[in-house]
């Protein structure tokens, strides 16, 4: 049995290219998500069309540009240029001040600032528009205050729970852990077992004195270790490079991860009993496992906003439940009481996959 496990390790480590990918992938992904991928908007390029050029508009422009959200691309001379700038993709927003701006402010209608947004990127447009609105409104409030006209103001105190600095990496680390555990456990096992089938070496193993259960355990054991190593690497990166805390119990986190790894392995074995060739196993894991894991698990995109059908499908994704668990432990610091349901679902899924593959396996042997 031990010799068999050693053989598996040997197989895996000899393929150094796959090794590099397996260990490089989590690191690169976490680094990318941590450093490069962010939804925050800063330094958005804007154009300014100032028909008035008076003290007030200069003040407002100064306020906009010093906010950190915006960066000046250019001053426009006419309305006709707006379209051109957008089409070239040079700016995301153009701010237009009407003629006689300062004078019109005193009139009962007030002066108007037109904020034109390139809404082909709706989220960005939305955020930029609210930032611009907030800056200009604050400015006019202050103006009124100086003129003693401002009577009332509501102070809004904003608190971001669980992620006070609103770092994207908090959101992505649980997802990256899930995807990688899935990739290593399910995909690698399914491919490696199918390869033995394809090469005919599986038959040799089956006629050996090893019992089938020993064969399967020997096959999956190295991947359990690999997955665990990956998990630890990601957690260390998250903790020490991104200073992301683990609020809850580390033991509980590792335990739940082990459960998820078991589930993925069972799934991988199931896939390998279904597919005849490596290529089939690969495509099945790719399209039936990886894509849904990434899309429907809430890893990147919130599930609540999807059409109902997809929300229902997402309940079938084991990764969805695991991500909830990881977020709970790592970010909210809750205990098992808060996610016993999710844990139970994972256990049931694991048993189901094991049951199905044992059944498939027996049918094939008979």
């Amino acid at each position: 049995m031990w010799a068999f496990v050693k053989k598996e390790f040997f197989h895996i480590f000899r393929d150094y290219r796959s090794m590099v990918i397996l260990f490089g992938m989590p690191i690169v992904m976490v680094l990318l998500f941590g450093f490069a991928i962010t939804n925050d908007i800063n330094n958005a390029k804007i154009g300014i069309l100032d028909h008035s050029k008076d003290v007030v508009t200069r003040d407002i422009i100064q306020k906009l540009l010093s906010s950190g959200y915006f960066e000046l691309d250019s001053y426009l001379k006419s309305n006709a240029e707006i379209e051109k700038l957008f089409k070239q993709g040079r700016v995301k927003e153009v701010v237009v001040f009407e003629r006689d701006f300062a004078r019109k402010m005193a009139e009962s209608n007030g002066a108007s600032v037109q904020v034109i947004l390139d809404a082909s990127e709706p989220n960005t447009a939305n955020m930029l528009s609210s930032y611009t609105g907030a800056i200009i409104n604050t400015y006019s409030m202050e103006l009124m205050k100086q003129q003693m006209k401002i009577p009332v103001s509501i102070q809004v105190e904003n608190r971001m729970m669980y992620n006070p600095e609103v770092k994207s990496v908090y959101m992505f680390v649980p997802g990256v852990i899930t995807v990688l555990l899935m990739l290593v456990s399910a995909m690698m096992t399914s491919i490696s077992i199918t390869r033995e089938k394809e090469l005919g070496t599986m038959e040799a193993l089956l006629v050996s004195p090893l019992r089938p259960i020993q064969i399967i355990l020997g096959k999956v054991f190295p991947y359990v270790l690999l997955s665990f190593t990956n998990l630890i690497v990601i957690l260390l990166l998250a903790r020490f490079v991104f200073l992301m805390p683990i609020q809850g119990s580390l033991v509980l986190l590792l335990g739940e991860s082990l459960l998820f790894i078991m589930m993925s392995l069972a799934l991988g074995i199931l896939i390998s009993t279904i597919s005849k060739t490596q290529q089939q196993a690969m495509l099945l894991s790719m399209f039936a496992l990886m894509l849904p894991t990434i899309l429907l698990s809430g890893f990147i995109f919130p599930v609540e906003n999807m059409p109902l059908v997809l929300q229902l499908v997402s309940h079938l994704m084991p990764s969805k439940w695991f991500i909830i668990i990881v977020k709970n432990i790592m970010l909210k610091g809750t205990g098992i009481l808060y996610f016993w349901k999710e844990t139970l679902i994972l256990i049931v899924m694991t048993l189901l996959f094991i049951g199905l593959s044992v059944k498939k396996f027996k049918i094939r042997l008979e």
Partner: protein
Amino acid sequence: MRKLLYILQKEFTQVFRDKAMLPIIFIIPIVQLLVLSYTATFEIKQVRLVVVDHDRTPESRDLVAKFSGSSFYKITNQVVEYAAAAELLKKGKADQFIIIEPKFASHLVTDRKANVQLITDAINGSAASLMSAYATAIIGEYNREIVVAITPLAGQSLPIRVEPSYWYNPELNYITYMVPGILVLLVTIIGLFLGSMNLVKEKEIGTIEQINVTPIKKYQFIAGKLIPFWVIANIDLAIGLLLAYFVFKIPVIGSVWLLFGVASIYLVAILSIGLVISTLTNTMQQAMFISWFFLVVFILMSGLFTPIESMPHWAQIIDYANPVAYFIKINRMIMLKGSGWPDIQNEVVILAGYAALLFTFSIWRYRKTV
């Protein structure tokens, strides 16, 4: 040239004979486009809001009404204390809660200043930013209304009106934004995976050796491997554009021919990357892992989901080498804004440079001898 035709004939025959290939090539992209367009969204439709109203006066209720009147918010619970709201957030049953201080209304009148606390589940940072921006805007609007109500002498709200207008996508439809990007994703997956798997497959089954003892030229063989998938990916793009038009009602505002022209150049670059990968690997498993790796990095950094401008400077510099980023940008410009050749020429020239470079490299990397 005649030899190339024989290779093409063989490649096409193989692709169309493989029963597993046809769905991969033609069905999966369609499903991807449909599913991704609905799933790949950061749009927030309904925030589950919990209200902790310590004041319970007409004023505080007015403020709450502002939230329930917004299509963006759904008030799921009204609770009496902070702890209960925090528990709901912890359990994941709410996204945000608002706390209105005791004596909110009287503070407004006497101190002319009142406090509202806004607490947002910020695990999903981008959603949190949007949620807090929306809530702040709603409270701001309420503020302006009471200004008018309390001080009629002013006769106006604020001296400056901000009037946003949203061009190209006035309804801020997120799908409109995503579809052009997903089309790029789709042809990229097809190009990169088929490109990298095909040559490696010949290595694995051993036919490559038979090819290598023939006097065939390296460029003929590589071109023979590239062209079929180039054609297929272009057909996929055409199908995708039709779907975008008929299902999502997103027409190509700019020139379709320009779009296909750029796509053709782009695909040479992507397929060449796939071929380079397949010359560097020995098994399909390796080829697949490496393709996957590049795909993930390319896509994450492409601006498909998150704006490139927000990335740190070094990441933006790396992105100059990311063909996916160029094509996503160009495709969005042509499809959504109707940009023309002068608007995109710089990007296209760079893409063409990459395509030529990568194609040459793949020919150079392909070894007939070991």
